[in-house]
């Protein structure tokens, strides 16, 4: 635990929708510079909130099914899932503070 999980179309249901703890999902793409920039902050959050929050990344180009399902139209999109539902969603680069605010209701 404490690591950023690589999410795919195949494991999304099990890792996110059926998760016992809330999940922060970063929808990202390799051509997206703000997505790359967010990596260290996500890694930090995964360690800091280990056990209370899961952090995962889903590459939208490699996983078209999930992207299509959630209609991700821009990256990065940060989405918070709880009990199988998407409860928060922000598109565009987010600072550490902004991400923490996004997580407020579950932490």
């Amino acid at each position, binding site marked *: 635990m404490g690591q950023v999980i690589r999410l795919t179309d195949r494991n999304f249901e099990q890792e996110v929708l059926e998760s016992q703890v809330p999940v922060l999902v970063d929808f990202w793409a390799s*051509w997206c*510079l*703000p997505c790359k920039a967010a990596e260290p902050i996500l890694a930090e959050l995964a360690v800091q909130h280990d056990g209370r929050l899961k952090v995962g990344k889903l590459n939208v*180009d*490699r996983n*078209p099914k999930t992207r*299509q399902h959630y209609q991700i139209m821009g990256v990065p999109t940060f989405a918070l899932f709880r009990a199988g539902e998407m409860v928060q969603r922000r598109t565009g680069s*987010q*600072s550490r503070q*902004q991400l923490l605010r996004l997580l407020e209701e579950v932490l």
Partner: protein
Amino acid sequence: MKLHNADKTCWNCPAIDLAGKVDFRACGQSVERFEKSLGEDEVYVMAECKRRPELGLFDPMGITFEECPEWVESPFGYMLRDMRVMIPGIDGYLGWALALWLGRLGFQVSGIDNYSRRDWVMERGAHTVVPIARMTERLQAAREVLGININFRRMDVTDRGRLREFIDEVKPEAIVHYAECPSAPYSMIDADHAVEVQRNNVLGTLGLLFIMRDAVPETSLLKLGTMGEYGTPLTGRPLFEGMFPADAVLHWEGREWSMGGELTPRDPVSFYHVSKVQDTFNIYEACKYWWLRSYDIMQGVIYGVYTEQVVADPRLRTRFDIDEWFGTVINRFVAQAVIGIPLTIYGAGEQMRGFIGLQDAMQCMTRLICSPPEPGQYGVVNQMSGYYSIRELAEVVARVGRRDFDLPVKIQRVENPRVEADRHPFEPIYERLPDEFGFEPQVSPEEEVYRMFELLTRPDIKSRIQQKSHLILPKTWWSGDKRQVETLEIWDEE
């Protein structure tokens, strides 16, 4: 210990064939069009391996470099067996050194050059003080002495037709693009020179991007930028590696925005540096539009004469310029020390710059070649092994010259012909190469300066410096003036 690129997968590998298997329209703004064509069926990204077609279609994330038999261990990380690397600009100071370096490691090296660096230097009336052989002789010596076969074609990087043919023939798996004019003062001589530098650099790179899109979209482009693209902001803002980190925030009128991943401001310091900034944007866009992959390498000021290969035979030496246009600062200092001209520092000499020795630069390039970016990734690294003020470096050269070579070295401050801050804060960030690519600098400035003295004090080379000593002090002013700078002060001893 785990090698730096062990966990990379076929997704990063140039031997992957994604064409026709990934819908590249998914990228950026075209995403909506892609959704419509997708239908209800489950679609996963599949790829084929160009080297092992018998594997058929497979998940490109499934095999790591560590697991793949095509990737073999080397001192610089896993290396793609017989990897084909093309070096446009192979006849230059860096291009030739890298060709030999990679050839010895087992890379299949090809390259092009139209000898414009030789022409530019000759046009200024200067010459490389370390004599270099003609290309035919260089290639023959590489074969005889090092056992390397280099596939060379004489051609201009802006000749898109011929370059396309050569790239189609070789199908390089990485392209290290050194075919640019690397001189700030040369671009500031007059309109003709500024235009020529920008034409060669900007249009050469732009044309290459189109060729890569059409012929080798999975190949990584390693393109040389310069730390000079950033300038030296007087606020002291750190010089990040190309883009802001995620926790950089813009505050304005009580609101805030994350700046994470946005390109940092560029403040180039000559028309040459502007050409590099223009390249940055062209490459960034090409990665975004066409899923090309590139590392833009912001190299500090390069210096030195040594790699194991270039010293193996006089015919394998790489060039070494000391004139005001093509001589980089430490290289010029050592030449001045050898012939008894006080080392010339411009203005206060408190300008801070990042530096990297030749051998360390080769190490960085090899590590980057071995660890290609992902499709669409435009990555930036600041390539330097340390930073110093120009004055500190002059003192290093003076110290080594006096102590080890018994030379009476003086230092002089002269008028600064450039438009730049003489005193400024400087906080470069250069963490990616060590942290992500395992780069460890091997050479200290003092050590490399010593090797430079050893070579440049040889009578034949010393005499070649003396022949061109009148071309070391600058006459090219950023204002357009053409007059020799005047001495402001001379220091005798430390």
